[in-house]
């Protein structure tokens, strides 16, 4: 996870935005405020990220050391050539929930989950143009807690990654793209993804089932947002991501007992 992902800000964030974000996170993760056992670690990392990014000189050096963002940008006319769909070097993590993606561009360096190889390989060749795309969508990073679809996706993955980040020292999050873009731009690949989704969820196809599945996923995401925003509604004790994992565990237990 790079510093921008850690602070959940776009790479083009202004110094003021960076500071405001830092202050917000500090109030959340400082050991005085957070009873979580990893608060100490988290706070130190956040501080490290802020110290680097707040200094223009250090930020420049740091930015140069980062690999390019895995983001999309708007294509000029026809869809991009599908390119080769060979799997990439890293094993993709199956994503159980596929959110319905809104039309508006989504921003934030949220690439927090491993996508299916099919979807983003085609973008790789065009990475320069992504930056322009992500820049224009930076306004959508909403810090006031208004539901932002990209947050749904990343928040769940962040909680998974949270545990894995300790083992993975090198930044493997770099290669992740938010493949929700794919649906918006590349109608042709839609079916591929649906197939993948179908395979993963074990459904045998059929438009109705697909739709029902998507609606369920939407509800799950709303639930997740509620969990993060007001944990007491779902009876979770922790706040933020801790509530999500807590609720997730509860749901899993429930699912297990039902099966």
């Amino acid at each position: 996870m790079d510093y921008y992902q850690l602070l959940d800000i776009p790479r083009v964030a202004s110094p003021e935005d960076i500071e405001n974000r830092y202050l917000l996170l500090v109030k959340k993760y400082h050991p005085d405020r957070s009873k979580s056992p990893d608060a100490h670690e988290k706070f130190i990392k956040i501080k490290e990220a802020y110290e680097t990014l707040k200094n223009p000189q250090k930020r420049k050096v740091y930015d140069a050391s980062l690999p390019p963002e895995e983001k999309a940008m708007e294509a000029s006319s026809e869809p991009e050539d599908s390119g080769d769909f060979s799997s990439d070097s890293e094993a993709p993590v199956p994503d159980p929930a596929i959110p319905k993606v809104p039309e508006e561009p989504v921003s934030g360096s949220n690439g927090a989950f491993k996508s299916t190889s099919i979807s983003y390989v085609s973008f790789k060749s065009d990475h320069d143009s992504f930056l322009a795309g992500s820049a224009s969508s930076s306004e959508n990073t909403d810090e006031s807690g208004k539901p932002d679809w990209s947050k749904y996706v990343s928040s769940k993955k962040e909680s998974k990654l949270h545990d894995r980040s300790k083992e993975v020292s090198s930044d493997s999050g770099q290669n992740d793209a938010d493949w929700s873009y794919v649906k918006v731009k590349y109608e042709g690949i839609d079916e591929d993804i649906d197939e993948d989704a179908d395979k993963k969820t074990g459904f045998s196809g059929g438009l109705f089932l697909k739709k029902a599945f998507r609606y369920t996923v939407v509800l799950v995401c709303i639930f997740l947002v509620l969990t993060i925003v007001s944990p007491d509604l779902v009876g979770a004790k922790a706040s933020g991501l801790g509530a999500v994992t807590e609720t997730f565990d509860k749901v899993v237990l429930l699912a297990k007992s039902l099966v």
Partner: protein
Amino acid sequence: MAQVRGKVLGIDLGTTNSCMSVIELGEPKVITNSEGKRLTPSVVGFSKKNELLVGELAKRQIVSNPENTVQSIKRYMGKPDYRVPLNNEKYTPHGISAMILQKLKADAEKYLGDAVGKAVITVPAYFNDSQRFATKKSGEMAGLEVLRVINEPTAAALAYGLRDGVQDQKILVYDLGGGTFDVSILKIKNGVFEVLATCGDTELGGDDFDRKIVDYLLSEFKEAEGTDLSENTEAMQRIREAAERCKIDLSSLTAANVDLPYIFESKRLDMEITREQFEAMTEDLVKKTIAIMEKALQDAGLSSQDIDEVILVGGSTRIPAVAKQVEDFMGKAPLQNINPDEVVAMGAAVQAGILGNEYLKSSGDQQIDSGNLVLLDVTSLTLGFETVGDTTAFIIPRNTTIPTRNSKVFTTHYDDQKVVRGKILQGEDQSASKNVALGTIVLENIPPAPKGVPRIEVTFDIDANGIINATARDLATGNMRSVTIERPAGLND
């Protein structure tokens, strides 16, 4: 009495006076002691009948029973070998402080009508690790769970910020107490109180101003009467007390009198000191504080114009020369409506409220609750590791926000060196022996290799409580050694 189960006491354990406060209805309230006073003198003694006296009662017998009375013990906190002979026993400084805290605890319980088990105690920002440890220990000896030891100027900033509505601003806290001096510069933004820099002198305070008057009186007396009174304990106690009163008087009068009949045999000490004389005597002390203020601004990377408010804390800021010099230097008048004796204790109560997730009311525009307030303090002294040639390798620089962690890689300095040993140092000096040693790291079983080849990573980690954890790791073998700071044996009594 209202239900106040589990209240956390905020305690300002001062050199001259102590004060305590709790959060009541969202605001810090100062608690009166059993004598009905808001300040308790930090004096401990045993009466002629061997009763333990703390506070006002002990202070009253300073002159009549000086061998059995102790004051300004804070100056000795953290000094491992210092002992106070009292009542046929030898007490450690933290043992004496524990007696003061015991009285405060008992008085608080009486006032609140309930048991008090937890406290937040303040210390000068410039206190080193041993001094903080001693303070925490004295709390524990008094039966209090010390949730946090926080810095006095930061506590003052918290109390001020909460009271006046937490707006975004930069403030400078000038804290001149009885025995210590601290300057802290804070940036308040979005409810986050971030210390930018802190600087101080743990041996500069009101007591030193008293000392100047005492020296003057002694020299004048010697000239007039030919006797040196400095060897006479009882005379010295009387002169010290009179000097303190004189200093206080000179804050409101332009001339004050010291009249001590029968100071020595039939001789009488009767002198007048004008405010001008006093200011001349103490000019160098005030200059010292201004120099420290300058350093703090430098460390923070700010000029005096960048500061929005100046807050004076500590009884000694009542000295007109002090307030004036601060105003001249900063180019703005300090805030007048802060009680310099109580604001630190109130700030400790606010921090207690934050830790306990209590509801905190702010009289300003913003509605503050403890979820919106957080204190980002800094380590005031550089932390380093001792290397060959009596050198200090700095690892965590002063004024680093805590919690924090940093590492540096070291290596052996002779072939086949099997053991690396070095002290953990706190201080700014390049020379290791001039800094305060907090403990020793010993890493053994380093595989034989030419000098300069092994990579030994030393990591220092400071948590939100200011507790230091040190680790040494041989990067080749993964062999690791964690060290908890060993306090000097004398602090463990």
